[in-house]
């Protein structure tokens, strides 16, 4: 669609970009993260845009979980993508897929952002013994990262029914009523979406 995006408040004055096309982003759907990173290393802004669309929410989720503050988390997202733009050339495809590299970049940017906190390091509340420890929290963060990234990779109609069912709290019948589509279609799309997620999350399912 020929809509261009609003210039975000974070951008310097005069940095308006050319209108973007959702169709162009759709074309990028089948391109791997690693290929996009390699293109970003060549300063391909379309590839950068596609990576942002894929990873803005996972990075933001990770930052929110670690920093617990929306403003700081937004700053960490910006710093993450700035770091991706600067250091994409250091990505080595033979050493692994793109997602773990992006996760490492994001984690470093978020840790850096956490270190710049101006708040005095007061004594935190003592954690009850059954609270997850650092290892469990790190693992949970990575799972959320991968799942949120995978959701971005689903076709729109599958993602819609899955988000309504999982995060909207609607039953399958309610999803059908809500979208004015037959119940059978909801079930078909849900199964297809779960199957596609299973493919995308293959590493996590082993």
């Amino acid at each position, binding site marked *: *669609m*020929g*809509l261009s*995006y*609003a*210039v*975000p*408040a*974070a*951008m*310097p004055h005069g*940095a308006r970009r050319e209108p973007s096309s*959702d169709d162009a982003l759709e074309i990028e759907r089948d391109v791997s993260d690693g290929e996009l990173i390699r293109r970003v290393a060549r*300063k391909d*802004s379309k590839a*950068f*845009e596609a990576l*942002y*669309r894929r990873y*803005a*929410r*996972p990075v*933001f989720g990770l930052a929110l979980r670690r920093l617990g503050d929306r403003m700081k988390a*937004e*700053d960490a*997202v*910006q710093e993450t*993508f*700035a770091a991706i*733009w600067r250091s994409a050339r250091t990505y080595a495809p033979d050493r692994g897929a793109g997602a773990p590299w992006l996760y490492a970049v994001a984690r470093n940017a978020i840790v850096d952002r956490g270190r710049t906190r101006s708040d005095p390091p007061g004594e935190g509340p003592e954690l009850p013994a059954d609270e997850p420890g650092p290892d469990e929290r790190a693992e949970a963060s990575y*799972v*959320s990262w*991968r*799942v*949120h990234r995978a959701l971005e990779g689903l076709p*729109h109609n599958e993602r*819609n029914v*899955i*988000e*309504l*069912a*999982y*995060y*909207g*709290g609607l*039953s*399958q019948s309610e999803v059908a*009523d*809500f979208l*004015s589509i037959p119940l059978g279609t909801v*079930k078909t799309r*849900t*199964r297809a979406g*779960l*199957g596609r*997620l*299973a493919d995308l*999350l293959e590493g*996590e*399912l082993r």
Partner: protein
Amino acid sequence: MNRGPDFEELVGKEVSAEERERLRAAHELLVQAGPPPELSPGMEAVPWPEEALPATWRRRRPTQRRPLVRAVALASAALVGFLIGHSTTSPTTSIEAQRTVNLHGTKLDRDAIGSLELGKKDSNGNWPMLLRVTRLKQLPEGGYYDLYLTRHGKPIAKCGVFNVGRGVTVVRLSASYDLNHFDRNGWVVTRQLPGHHKPTDIVLKPV
């Protein structure tokens, strides 16, 4: 942890045992991950790397527009919205959606849920929209809901008026605004109780 929807209801029985286990694993990861976070309108826009990265990535302070200019702009937007954004309930519940924005209830109506499908701009410059809502409270006589476009999160331009019954309400609306002037995916629904006509009570906002 929220256990999510009933897996057996989602998948049914016509799936092989092997496939069922694969789907169940994806189901459990979805539940474990929880919902993805909501991006602020500013974050919906992709940063433009060439200029943005080496320069200041700090937030610009919102510019203070002169009150008169702002009032005129708001009044114009409201008038255009009023003239163009009439809503009509229609039995036609499909639209060739170019984009779908999912909406969720705010603290004023936590159970409410909605989606807005944005169609393709017609030759006259109108954007067709199909709004679906459910679980919004029925309002007392004289009350109504408005759909607004937002700028920096604030409702600015009215896109139509509607009321709800029981179950799912579907309304077709249209707006002729230049969407570049508003937040990306910046649609909200406001509740207007009798005698209250300012768009302050947002009941549905983008996920």
